[in-house]
């Protein structure tokens, strides 16, 4: 089969600048939308999945396996674990065992002011930096034990809807009418911790008037999960449950599945609208060329050659839109912080996301051109040659 020259398809795009603009803008919108949806889902997944370390185990209250915030266990669990389970990872004699309190607390930026929102707080000891290697200080210092000082994650300001300056080192946040001074900032890219506020464990215990802790996070060294599980089962009095940290965040990811589905459904519906618009444009573009199509067939070009030419034309417009849409997405969407109950995460516009957007754009070009092309070729040649 001999094909029509590519130039023919390319130049046909220039026949109606308005129609070309509509096709390209339609493609841009659908691609940006597809990239947004994919970047949202990937960003959320990355944030949740990246929060768990494969060697960490969380010990939390039995029955609270789905939410650390609801968990309450004895503060002594940390020392008992350290003393009982051999082979936990350690450095300079310090086992990687981190007692933690997780709580969502209302935050104000001034004394007696209305809270601006809830931040996800984590009460920690210095061991937290050992069991969560994703966390690294980027500014300031760590809080002193017992002091009303705190660390803020990179995306904490996004979680609270504040500008980055407002959570700079030296600023204060008010929690339950107590001022806490920001003494440092940390980064924990692609984890929920990146949007958290970390305070000394004892300070948050005082603040929340609790004696216990939410959980103990420990890092397995030579020990295995079975060793931790055995400890949990042998100390029924402590009412503990053990779960791999990765599994915990996988469960959280599954919990947000309906949200992700809603995002996809919304994108699909708007994308379908874009597709119908594209189809309409292509129907009009091809319908105005029925006589020309008849002429090409009379010259000896096969129907397939003409469909391929139409496909090239449509793909060219769609690809232009896809590239523009991808560039716009990269410029405007990448890294945008989205708040959710676990904190905040950044939209992830990376190579797979761009690839996905471009694939959707090209698919739109294919689906948008085949039916109009076939309709255009439906007429017998003799009839097509009579068309106005």
């Amino acid at each position, binding site marked *: 089969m*001999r094909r*029509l*020259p590519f*130039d*023919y398809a390319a*130049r*046909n795009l*220039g*026949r109606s600048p308005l129609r070309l603009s509509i096709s390209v803008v339609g493609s841009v919108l659908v691609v940006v939308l597809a990239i947004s949806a994919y970047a949202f889902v990937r960003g959320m997944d990355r944030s949740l999945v990246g929060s768990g370390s494969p060697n960490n185990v969380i010990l939390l209250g039995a029955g609270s396996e789905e939410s650390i915030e609801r968990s309450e266990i004895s503060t002594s669990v940390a020392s008992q674990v350290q003393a009982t389970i051999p082979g936990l990872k350690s450095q300079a004699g310090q086992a990687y065992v981190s007692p933690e309190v997780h709580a969502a607390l209302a935050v104000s930026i001034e004394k007696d002011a209305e809270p601006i929102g809830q931040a996800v707080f984590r009460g920690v000891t210095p061991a937290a930096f050992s069991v969560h290697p994703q966390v690294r200080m980027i500014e300031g210092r760590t809080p002193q034990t017992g002091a009303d000082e705190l660390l803020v994650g990179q995306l904490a300001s996004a979680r609270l809807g504040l500008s980055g300056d407002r959570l700079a080192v030296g600023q204060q946040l008010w929690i339950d009418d107590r001022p806490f001074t920001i003494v440092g900032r940390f980064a924990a890219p692609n984890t929920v911790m990146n949007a958290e506020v970390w305070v000394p464990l004892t300070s948050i215990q005082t603040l929340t008037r609790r004696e216990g802790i939410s959980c103990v996070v420990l890092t397995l060294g030579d020990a295995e999960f079975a060793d931790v599980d055995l400890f949990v089962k042998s100390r029924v009095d402590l009412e503990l449950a053990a779960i791999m940290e990765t599994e915990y965040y996988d469960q959280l990811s599954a919990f947000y599945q309906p949200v992700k589905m809603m995002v996809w459904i919304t994108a699909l519906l708007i994308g379908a609208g874009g597709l119908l618009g594209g189809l309409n444009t292509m129907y009009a573009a091809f319908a105005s060329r029925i*006589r*020309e199509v*008849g*002429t*090409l*067939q*009379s*010259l*000896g*070009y*096969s*129907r397939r050659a003409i469909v391929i030419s139409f496909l090239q034309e449509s793909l060219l417009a769609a690809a232009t839109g896809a590239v523009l849409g991808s560039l716009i997405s990269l410029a405007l969407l990448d890294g945008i912080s989205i708040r959710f109950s676990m904190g905040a995460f950044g939209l992830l516009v990376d190579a797979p996301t761009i690839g996905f957007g471009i694939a959707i754009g090209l698919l739109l070009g294919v689906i948008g051109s085949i039916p109009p092309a076939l309709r255009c070729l439906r007429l*017998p*040649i*003799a009839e097509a*040659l009579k068309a106005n």
Partner: protein
Amino acid sequence: MAMIECRQLSKTYRKGASIIKPLDSLDLDVEQGSFLALMGPSGSGKTTLLNLIAGIDQPTSGSLTIAGQNIAALSRSKLASWRAKHVGYVFQLYNLVPVLTAYENVELPMLLHPLSRKQRHERVGTALSLVGLADRHDHYPRQLSGGQEQRVAIARAIVTDPQIIVADEPTGDLDKPSAHAVMSLLVRLNQELGKTLIMVTHDAATAEHAGLTLHLDKGQLVEQSVTAAFSGETATTHADEGGDA
């Protein structure tokens, strides 16, 4: 053996509840190198006959043998290949592709043949020279007059060196000088290059350029006339009404 042989050639189609028969059991032989004009009122079947001979329509019944091949039996894709090799079509409204230059329009049917770029270039140049438009090769159709467009269309029709050229009202949309130029060109193609030419026209003066004029009505051949300027038999009809021409 005639170049074109139509035997009991019929074409029918349904339009709503009624059946239309634009061509009814037509018998016709056309010798190679003939210049045939088809005349008749609207709906007489002349364009249908032209389209059947050009291979862009297929008969409902009967046989249509061109250069020894019954094209009525060809599949759609084989018929497309056959058209590319054997027929050049000249349309009333020229039907040039507006986004292609004169050169590219003429080159278009050449792309269906296994020729190098250089070979295509030579043949397109020859065809454009033949119609007197070599200097307009880079013009787009919108930059040409109607007569020039039709001459480009003729160059496109002959560039593949087809055995048959069909023309549907080739001067129907042209002023008199342009029409004269186009007809002179078609006559040259017939007389100097020996192309078999079949032309539909409503205009008796235009038909006089042809060697033989066939008059059709209601899908049947009703009359034929030989132009005085031409001698020798060029077509034979086998319809009941007609005898040997």
